[in-house]
């Protein structure tokens, strides 16, 4: 892994120390957690009674009630949850279009990991390339992550259609520029299966969001090295912005469909002060 990648992760980790992951999700599930869940669990706090169903733990049968009423009744205890965050980082080559974009996406990964720790949640970092693979040391602090190479030239969406088994009811955050060919709903449905919450963060470089250059330009796709000659003027710029807006609308609608949160961030603005207003507004992150 490149030296500067670790620097960017550390930078994000530092920035994340001022944030905490928002856990206001009904489906959060964990073991021996610090926070009371909405489901029955194995904590010491009594919650309710209910009739025994075959398969219930026999140890929870209240024998006193059985003695009085001759009915098998089990005691339910309040669940204690311990949140878990899955950080999915787009490993394609487009994430290193420029320093700001690389810095922002790695820093944001570190920030989420740090915010999760602040919220007493565990985390696991994944790198999405041809497959979705764990990042070495991805469950510890970001500055210790290893093996990150943003050099994939294919379509990460294909890998997200068949994700690995994530921890149930965890929070899943996808950090990507989303500039690849896929059906957003399909990707999000796969990604948010058994998830407590799904957050899609589209991180774009300034030049991705608005190509200000004018004149004749030979565009080179950094992933495929495909060349396209374009005359950039107000007309083509408008068409480009229209296409980008359409893509973002597709993802936004897909997020609404699956109940995910969607945020669009500009790399150059993110790295200015790491105050990500959109994520704070949507309570994905909370300021400590």
């Amino acid at each position, binding site marked *: 892994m490149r030296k500067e990648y670790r620097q960017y992760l550390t930078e994000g980790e530092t920035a994340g120390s001022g944030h905490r992951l928002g856990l206001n999700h009904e489906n959060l599930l964990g073991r021996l957690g610090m926070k009371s869940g909405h489901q029955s669990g194995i904590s010491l706090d009594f919650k309710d009674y209910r009739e025994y169903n075959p398969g219930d733990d026999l140890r929870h049968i209240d024998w006193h009630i059985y003695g009085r009423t001759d009915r098998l009744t089990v005691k339910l205890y309040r669940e204690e949850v311990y949140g878990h965050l899955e950080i999915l980082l787009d490993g394609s080559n487009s994430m290193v279009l420029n320093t700001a974009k690389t810095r922002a996406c790695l820093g944001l990964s570190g920030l989420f990991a740090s915010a999760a720790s602040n919220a007493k949640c565990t985390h696991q970092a994944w790198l999405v390339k041809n497959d979705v693979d764990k990042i070495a040391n991805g469950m510890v602090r970001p500055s210790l992550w290893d093996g990150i190479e943003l050099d994939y030239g294919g379509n990460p969406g294909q890998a997200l259609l068949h994700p690995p088994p994530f921890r149930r009811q965890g929070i899943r955050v996808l950090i990507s520029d989303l500039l690849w060919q896929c059906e957003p709903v399909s990707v999000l449905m796969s990604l948010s299966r058994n998830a407590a919450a799904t957050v899609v963060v589209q991180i774009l470089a300034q030049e991705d969001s608005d190509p200000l250059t004018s004149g004749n330009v030979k*565009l080179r*796709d950094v992933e495929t090295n495909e060349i396209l000659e374009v005359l950039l003027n107000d007309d083509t710029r408008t068409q480009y912005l229209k296409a980008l807006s359409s893509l973002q609308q597709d993802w936004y609608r897909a997020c609404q469909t699956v109940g995910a949160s969607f945020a669009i961030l500009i790399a150059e603005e993110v790295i200015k002060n790491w105050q990500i207003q959109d994520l704070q507004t949507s309570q994905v992150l909370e300021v400590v």
Partner: protein
Amino acid sequence: MLNFTYPLAFWGLISILALIVFYFFRNRFQRKPVSSLLLWKFIARPREGGPRLNRLVMPLTFFLELLALILIVMAAVDPRWHLIGNQRPLFVILDNSTSMLAGGSHSPRERAEKYFLQAVRKSGNRTVRCIIAGEEPRLSGTFSASQNSVAEVLRQWQCGSRMACLEEGVSLGLESGGKDVDIMVLTDHAPPSGITENSRIKWLAFGKPFPNAGITGGTRRSLRDKEKVFLQITSFSQGQTRMKIIADDGKNSELARQNIVLKPGECKQTVFEIPSGIPMLHIWLKTGDNFETDDHAYLASEDTKPVRVLSKISNAKLKQVFEKALDASGMRSNLKDNPQILITDQAGQGAIDDFTWNVRISGQGSARAYAGPFVCDMNHPLMTGTNLTSVIWGGGEQAALPGIPVVTAGNVPLITDQIFPSGRHDLNFVFNPSLSTLQNTPNFPVIVWNLLRWRASESPGFTEANVRLGDQAVLIPEHEADVYRVVSPKGRESTARTDGGRLAIQADETGFWRISGRSGTYDFACNLFSPGESDLTGNVSGQWGSFADPETVKKKYASTSWFWILLSLAVLVGHLKVLAHRKG
């Protein structure tokens, strides 16, 4: 080495090229990496059909900069606005020589006339004055384009002169017009070197070189019952020329015919005989060339007018010398009554009347002789064809003789001419044949012949029956009449009046002229006989000189540089605004 009239404009043009090259390279396809081409698919092109030609699109700033540079170049070139109020008069010198008619309907005159009319139309309110340059230049008319006197000038421009004094015409134009005048010369040949260095002169030639052969001289002389015709024919072509000479009596009755072959550039004299008594002889040279005027010769019969001479000379030797010379002249009449000339060496002999010219000879007693140098008035009719070099002239020592000196030896007059109001001339000779060699040289009979011819020319009739084109034919009528009717060879009729007993006719057409009046009818002939006009090999077309000298331009045209500079500044301000708008 190249020199530029407007070096600033040249550098301006270079900068325009530099600007175009700069923008061309600037607008080349720049490589730009992007995250994905996914969003650029809207301009993806089909692979079929080959490459598409893109229109070169330049930004607005390029066109503004280009416009500014062009305006600066315009300012550097310094275009000028024609000042209508500051118009210089135009003098047009029209070549009136006959060679302007060579070539038929495509003659230099026809082409020059078209140009002339065009120039007059373009001249606007400018004053145009014309000088017709023949044997001498003469002002023809003053007009502007709005007037109709152009037709009158063209009517006068007949090209009927055997030469064109164009340089004199130019001098007359410059003298008449002063400093601010433009001179335009319309002719058929190139200018003499240096004349177009004057920036006020534009020389336009419309001629074409043609091979030509023509009659360049001719005369006829009586010889008993026949007449001999002497002709000089010259070829002005690069090849051998065959031609026929046909002589008729002016009424299509052929008198003689001759074939002749001329080598390139050859000048040949030919002689043939015709019967005597032909008053008008027309000679036609059939060459088939483009210039017809010199292919015809018209020779009128030269009437010999005998002069009645009375000799009263007592000195025997002197008498012998004079008698011999008078007889040799062939012009002495046998009649002695009412003499026209009285020759005497008698000191007391007075004048007979105003009709008789007196020739008084003195100096027989003198022992002095003069070997020269002699001072001669060669313009005097008596001295034509004489040369007194090596002559010993014996004569008197009289320091004063009445009349104007014609020949002197130092301050000693040897011949004087005394003119009387009646037109009579008295000639005083100081001549001693015993001490002289003059009578042994051709000069003496020449002087005597000149005397008789001079006196004969004062007799009624033409002084010369055959004149050259442009010369004056002088008629002394038998009886003075106020008005005479003159008919030119082309049938143009006019009237003329005698002046001092003489009638002078300007011969501006070749052919036979007729003058009729109360005292009778007189005919004379006019011929070109000008080798210079017959030689068409030097004719050219072209233009030399122009009116566009810097001083003239400054006077006639106002500079507009300020206007272009202001425009360029306005464009540059617009350019600045566009840049400011882009930067937000």
